[in-house]
């Protein structure tokens, strides 16, 4: 944020229907209404994109202006009186919606958008319940895989042009365009999508024209509940919501957060839900026996490590609270080091993605410093070099690993330790065969806590549903092996 934007803006008073609004100068008229909780039907307007003014749903009347105009193409002015509840406007919205639905295939039963679809929502509110349309509809291409896990259905499209504006304005990759004229106009893709933010297209599409291949047909949206949390994919720490229900977690979507991520999030961040409800989630301690993991009693592990020298390698993805409780329990700070995920990709891609994949490196460093431990990579390397068969090494596994080569080489160095225990969420990775025991820890969605992002801002992790053993975090296990 620049300094100019931080300055308090002049507030402007206006009247929307009978409600008095007070908004900063220069606000979009439709945006002003939406921000103040007034529900106005709209498709093409998106606060994060340029104004297109093509859906014609947000028509308003203003006192002293002869013709109705779309609110999205107006800026607030002092003392204006705007109405969208007159009969004229209501008729206009009703008919415009009818026009929108004219060539819509109405395949809601097989459409993933059903339940959160703009057409359905406004139809319930503004629809003409008996359509006068009995003519043949215009058919366009259905089920086109346009790359980046996005599926395009041109028939469902209402040509609001949000997607084309997104690839033009935000990612600047220009893969999408609207070809042809009139009611044969349709979204077309040049070869295929090739950007790291393609899944945002699915979010901004107000209808079911763009759907996610990853989420496609897995669940109906009304079975899902959203848990607001923070993305742990990289140090950016975008605000996200994870959709889940009792059978699992299904998708991740961004939450509007002007301070961190704005309206978007990257496609890598969309994958952070995948390990939450895998079948391999641990429900209790496991032992590696006969080349497979079997449940084991805690006392057995306790027995094994009794005479050993306990060492810990923490990951940089735990919450501040977990570090705190861990350091409270485990005082032998010389035996604690930190494993940092290596940087991958460009330092910063200009939109959101950052190379540093440790979501809470700053929190970890702070906690280490506070406890007097050494969080540097050298300290970790030194510990790895000095491992002996007398050591019991506890490794807190990072929840998501990007650079598997680097991680494998890290694991190859721990074999010198006599006893190796991993604190992890699931047993799905092949590298686990190097360990003698696995101990379950909660995933990021199974604990309350905070992490610190690249701006040194505290970001909140919230607790959602649990799909494995989540009652004991890293600190609690440390307590067990005193």
């Amino acid at each position: 944020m620049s300094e100019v934007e931080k300055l308090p803006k002049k507030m402007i008073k206006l009247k929307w229907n009978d409600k008095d609004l007070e908004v900063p100068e220069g606000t979009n008229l439709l945006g002003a209404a939406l921000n103040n909780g007034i529900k106005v039907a709209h498709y093409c307007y998106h606060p994060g994109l340029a104004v297109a003014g093509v859906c014609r749903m947000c028509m308003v009347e203003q006192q002293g202006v002869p013709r109705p105009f779309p609110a999205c193409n107006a800026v607030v002015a002092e003392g204006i009186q705007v109405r969208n509840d007159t009969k004229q406007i209501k008729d206009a919205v009703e008919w415009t919606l009818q026009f929108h639905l004219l060539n819509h295939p109405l395949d809601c039963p097989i459409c993933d958008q059903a339940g959160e679809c703009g057409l359905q929502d406004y139809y319930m509110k503004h629809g003409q319940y008996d359509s006068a349309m009995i003519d043949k509809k215009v058919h366009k291409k259905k089920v086109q895989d346009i790359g980046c896990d996005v599926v395009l259905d041109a028939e469902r499209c209402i040509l609001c042009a949000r997607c084309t504006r997104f690839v033009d304005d935000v990612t600047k990759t220009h893969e999408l365009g609207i070809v042809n004229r009139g009611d044969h106009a349709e979204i077309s893709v040049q070869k295929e999508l090739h950007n790291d933010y393609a899944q945002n297209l699915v979010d901004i599409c107000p209808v079911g024209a763009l759907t996610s291949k990853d989420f496609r047909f897995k669940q109906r949206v009304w079975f899902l509940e959203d848990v607001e949390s923070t993305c742990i994919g990289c140090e950016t720490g975008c605000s996200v919501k994870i959709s889940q229900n009792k059978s699992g977690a299904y998708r991740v979507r961004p939450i509007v957060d002007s301070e961190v991520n704005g309206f978007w999030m990257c496609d890598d961040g969309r994958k952070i839900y995948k390990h939450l409800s895998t079948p391999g989630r641990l429900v209790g301690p496991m032992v590696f026996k006969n080349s497979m993991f079997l449940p084991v009693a805690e006392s057995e592990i306790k027995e094994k490590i009794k005479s050993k020298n306990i060492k810990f390698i923490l990951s940089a993805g735990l919450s501040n609270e977990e570090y705190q409780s861990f350091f409270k329990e485990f005082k032998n700070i010389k035996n604690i080091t930190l494993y940092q995920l290596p940087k991958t990709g460009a330092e910063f891609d200009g939109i959101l993605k950052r190379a540093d994949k440790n979501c809470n490196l700053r929190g970890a460093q702070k906690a280490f410093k506070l406890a007097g431990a050494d969080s540097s990579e050298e300290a970790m390397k030194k510990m790895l070099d000095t491992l002996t068969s007398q050591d019991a090494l506890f490794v807190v596994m990072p929840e998501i690993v990007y650079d598997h080569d680097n991680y494998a080489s890290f694991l190859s160095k721990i074999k010198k330790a006599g006893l190796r225990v991993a604190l992890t969420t699931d047993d799905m990775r092949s590298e686990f065969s190097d360990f003698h025991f696995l101990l379950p820890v909660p995933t990021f969605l199974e604990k309350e806590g905070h992490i610190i992002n690249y701006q040194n801002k505290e970001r909140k992790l919230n607790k959602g549903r649990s799909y494995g053993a989540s009652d004991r975090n890293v600190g609690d296990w440390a307590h067990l092996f005193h």
Partner: protein
Amino acid sequence: MILNKELYRHHGHLKGLFIALRITIKTMIMNLTGMEKRMTINYPEEKYFYSDRFKGRHVLTVKEDGTLRCTSCMLCATYCPADCIHIIASNNDDPSVEKAPVSFEIELLRCVFCGFCEEACPVDAIRLTGEYEMAGHSEQEWVMDQHYLAYRPLLSGGKGIVSTVDDHNRLKLRL
């Protein structure tokens, strides 16, 4: 309990007995001669036919080509008050079908036969039939999968019940 105190006081219980016997014998003769319809039937040999509106065991209808009509929109599962319908949907390679169930299960033991699923279905894919004979030992036998629901031998000899409701319009106009 004496139904008619007055009758009993005037005629005593003997006469009452005869009045009752007369009704019994009259009904027996009427039934034997077929002058009056019997309420009971010889069940396993004879079957009672309920009205078409009876809500018995479910059936999944099929299209003319024999595939399931169900598009797995999950509206039935959504409306089911007993939470007894479990559907797993998947992508179908045929773009005109797009979505079809890979698994459609109904737990009959949970089902309350309310018929909401039938009403919720937008494509006439699920119906409640007149079948009322249900028996089973283990809990597993009470879970019907989509194969049983659509192609059990009772339904046109395993071919399933073909439904073409709205198909004409849907395919012609894709309304």
